[in-house]
């Protein structure tokens, strides 16, 4: 058992998600890299596990959106065991899922993404966190946010055991029946949820859209990326989160593909790079053309704005109205402005709340017929849901005993990995000239990054607060010339490095 322990001083302080920027001799950006420095290997170690355990195992891929993985997994099991969930099961699952979407989107808006706009990009750094948000919107509102979220999580516990890593799903059904009492609670909650969603939209209006500077920022070409878009749609072509076909539109908004979950592999392919542990999905038909945008590049985007772009509207009235307002304001279709992601997210918050009202009214919800136990011999199954961060795909194969023999997971954030890299590269190129950088730049770059609400990033893990980030400027030889770090409490530090020292390095702690 030979033993070589290497701790590379250069990687000493790396975090989850790192940006390397390479400069040319003039000090202009030649390339900016976004890296994910970790791999947990789920696809390998789920092999040999009983299929029915997958919803609980794979939810551990992400503790922020466990319900998305849980649900994609359960749907994959339905297919794997060739069983159709009972109407009651479907109603319970969709209720649970919309509770989750409502809560997760709100969390991002108020705790994570919100600070950029509600508090403001130029606000004192120390205030750029949930506490700052609370100062801005008032403690009462802050408490309301916390309260509505709490009620939402409690309902999820009632229905699915626990909100983080739920135990709800079984192939062909759910584990627990919804009682009339739970339904009553749901009914009141759903009504309040709709009002709270409207309140949030109003806050966004007053605090962001009313501010020209912000609107310009949103529309600025720094955050512009013309790519394909992917999202799930219902029969009518409206945005769907729990179930439906997947629709792909090109940068011009033209539908180029629409497929059922089982066909996903014929549409999506993934590319591997040696400098990051994350893979880069692209449209198989077009192929991998490198980190470029446009209709000739296979790179596509997912998540709220992509879903809206890929669909022809929202299935509920209030959400539809907000959807129309969004497109009217931006004025293009599809919307290529990355920062519009925040607004699109609110449209979906509204949609989720309205769906909850409908589901609370649906009779099946409390039926005792929660499981279809007529399971067939398992073989292969694909399950897809729209996670907060985009289209999420679980694909399993198993032996006849239902032990997983192969799993393929295309995780939502991964769907955006190429786009995130390009957004950062673009922001960096636009903003860094002649080797000069400043904290403003870092914040701008960070915003491009955080708009995607990427699971892997500190954005979802730095709670509350802001993303610490470092940018290392390297010369052609790759030696670090300068490192700028923006710390938790926001001060920027500039560290000059002697070119001769190749080991001096920086890292991002996100």
């Amino acid at each position, binding site marked *: 058992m030979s033993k070589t322990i290497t701790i590379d001083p250069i*990687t000493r302080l790396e975090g989850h998600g790192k940006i390397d920027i390479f400069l040319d001799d003039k000090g202009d950006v030649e390339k900016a890299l976004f890296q994910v420095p970790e791999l947990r290997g789920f696809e390998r170690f789920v*092999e040999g596990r009983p299929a029915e355990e997958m919803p609980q195992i794979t939810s551990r891929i992400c503790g*922020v959106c466990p319900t998305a993985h849980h649900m994609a997994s359960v749907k994959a099991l339905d297919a794997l065991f060739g069983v159709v969930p009972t109407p009651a099961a479907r109603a319970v699952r969709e209720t649970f899922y919309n509770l989750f979407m409502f809560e997760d989107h709100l969390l991002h808006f108020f705790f994570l993404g919100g600070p950029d706009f509600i508090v403001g990009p130029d606000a004192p750094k120390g205030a750029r966190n949930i506490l700052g948000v609370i100062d801005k919107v008032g403690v009462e509102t802050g408490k309301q946010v916390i309260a509505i979220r709490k009620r939402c999580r409690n309902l999820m516990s009632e229905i699915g055991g626990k909100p983080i890593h739920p135990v709800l799903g079984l192939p062909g059904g759910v584990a627990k029946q919804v009682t009339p009492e739970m339904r009553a609670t749901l009914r009141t909650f759903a009504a309040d949820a709709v009002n709270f969603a409207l309140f949030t939209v109003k806050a966004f209006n007053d605090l962001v859209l009313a501010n020209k500077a912000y609107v310009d920022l949103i529309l600025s070409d720094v955050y512009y990326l013309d790519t394909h878009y992917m999202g799930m749609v219902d029969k009518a072509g409206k945005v769907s989160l729990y179930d439906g076909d997947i629709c792909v539109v090109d940068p011009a908004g033209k539908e180029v593909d629409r497929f059922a979950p089982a066909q996903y592999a014929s549409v999506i392919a*993934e590319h591997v790079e040696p400098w990051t542990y994350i893979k880069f999905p692209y449209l198989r038909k077009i192929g991998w053309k490198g980190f470029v945008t446009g209709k000739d590049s296979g790179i596509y985007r997912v998540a709220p704005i992509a879903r809206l772009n890929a669909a022809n509207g929202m299935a509920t009235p209030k959400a539809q109205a907000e959807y129309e307002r969004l497109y009217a304001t931006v004025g293009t279709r599809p919307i290529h402005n990355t920062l519009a992601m925040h607004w699109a997210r609110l449209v979906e918050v509204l949609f989720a709340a309205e769906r909850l009202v409908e589901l609370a009214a649906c009779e099946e919800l409390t039926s005792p017929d929660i499981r279809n136990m007529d399971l067939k011999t398992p073989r292969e199954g694909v399950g897809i849901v729209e996670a907060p961060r985009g289209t999420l795909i679980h694909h399993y194969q198993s032996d006849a005993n239902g032990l997983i023999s192969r799993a393929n997971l295309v995780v939502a954030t991964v769907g955006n990995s190429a786009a995130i890299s390009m957004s950062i590269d673009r922001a960096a190129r636009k903003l860094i000239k002649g080797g000069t950088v400043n904290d403003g730049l870092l914040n701008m770059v960070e915003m491009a990054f955080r708009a995607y609400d990427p699971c892997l990033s500190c954005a979802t893990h730095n709670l509350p607060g802001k993303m610490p980030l470092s940018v290392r400027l390297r010369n052609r030889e790759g030696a670090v010339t300068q490192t700028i770090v923006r710390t938790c409490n926001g001060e920027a530090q500039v560290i000059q490095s002697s070119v001769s020292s190749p080991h001096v*390095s920086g890292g991002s702690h996100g």
Partner: protein
Amino acid sequence: MAGKPKIALYWCASCGGCEETVVDLDERILDVVAAVDIVFWPCAMDFKYSDVEAMADKSIAVSFINGAIRTTEQEHVAKLLRRKSGLVVAFGDCAWMGGIPALANLSNRREIFDRAYGPGPTTVNPEGVMPQPGGMLDGRTATLPAMYDTVLRLSDVIEVDYFLPGCPPTSDLVAGAVTAILTGALPAKGSVLASDKSLCTTCDRNASKPDSLTVDSFRRVTQVAVDPTKCLLAQGVVCMGPATRDGCGFPCVKGNMPCTGCFGPVSGADQGARMVAALGGILDTSNAATREALAGIPDPAGSFYRYGMSASLLGSKRKEAGA
């Protein structure tokens, strides 16, 4: 703000659920924020090693570290935090005993890479490119931390003062731990900050379990319409409650699903050994029927060490071979 104790929260190989459980403190988070100065990452420090060294040791009151140790970088940061912190708390199963990522210890790094980056339903990789430290892009070297072959617990690389069980720990447990730390009302160093009895002691279905329980065969949850009022084990469904630490409030059982053991074993116990011993003991069947009776447990290692492979006797790194 200066007077308040500094608290750091760092994540290694984990899913973020442990951070979510902090948010689930709900209104209590405001009290916590009022009482402490939260330094979520030790990023106030400079990047040159010398500057890191310069930061006063033990200047962080307590570091909550979640996630398993899988890369050189995670081990490094863990060691750094250990030095800079008065207390280090392993927060959640991954840090305590490896957690779900440690299921990888049934396999190894090579197989994991082959599966993740080798040809698959969607992966197209004709040249067999593998991410690696020093991976190149357009002639430029990017830096990636290296992955270990074995998933480690936090306590495999640094000294840990306390452990918070759970995947994730419940927010009540977290609140209790924070209070205990702030008030200094802490048990012996090295303790798990939870009960040392098994889950059955509080589970409201234990009353329905017969005093002398024997099971003629174990069945998978897909094969049973679970009676929501009766002990799952008594229904032949493998519930890990008996071999699992109490303190979660049995949410899974309330969800009408069996306990999968995320609060880990009681002190000094190997969770898998305990389950094998207990289930084997109550299995009442003829020799001939034993295999079928056990067919309902097709994956004992994966099921009994779901959250604790790095703490298991057979699936963990040998202390003797420390790095």
